[in-house]
């Protein structure tokens, strides 16, 4: 079982689920793709939400996809989101 505060050698899929805010998720899983379910959206337009269940966390988006599929076996809404900056790499090459 993975303990929440130390993710260095943690398995990507989590056994003990807890509800976390986006700020807590970003702090705990920096620069990773997190697979979330039961997201308490504030409204139908913004990304803002209260808390969500984190089902798994991965280094790449492709790695997260099987966890999303697995999550849909148990939850009606599952998504994957990156916790770091959403910059695209080409931008870095444009900066002198």
């Amino acid at each position: 079982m993975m303990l929440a505060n130390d993710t260095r050698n943690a398995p990507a899929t989590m056994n003990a689920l807890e509800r976390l805010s986006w700020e807590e998720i970003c702090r705990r899983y920096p620069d990773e793709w997190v697979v979330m379910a039961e997201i308490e959206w504030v409204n139908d337009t913004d990304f803002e939400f209260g808390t969500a269940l984190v089902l798994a966390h991965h280094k790449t988006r492709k790695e997260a996809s099987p966890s999303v599929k697995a999550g849909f076996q148990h939850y009606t809404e599952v998504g994957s989101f990156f916790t770091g900056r959403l910059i695209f790499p080409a931008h870095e090459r444009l900066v002198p």
Partner: protein
Amino acid sequence: MKVTRFSTSEDLIFVKGSVWGPLRRRGRPLWFALDTAAAETIIVPEVLDEIGYNPRQGEAITVLRSAVGREQGYLIRIERLDCLGHQARDFRVHAHDLPDGWNFEGLLGLNFLRQFNYEVRSAEGRIRVERVAA
């Protein structure tokens, strides 16, 4: 009139959207980059696979030309796409990989946006959108 907020600290405009497919009773949420320079809306193939679509259901094979090369993908109609507080049904998207390191899962292009009048208020981090009467 719907108002969507976005982060002004990012390099692009990212908005939350959701897509529906045959396997999902609720939408699969994802981040789109708003791209008024893209004619079509693009979603990465993994997301479409997760909601129950596969390349065999595609209408056509497509090739995306970009600064980094040519990527093959496919064109497909999805049951529903929600974004900016509005929805589009039986909506055509391109299934294409985005380059590694682009940490979002879709580009929201003009084939979605042209159904609306919209106002991007960059300094405020808000997009105001109203549907155009048919």
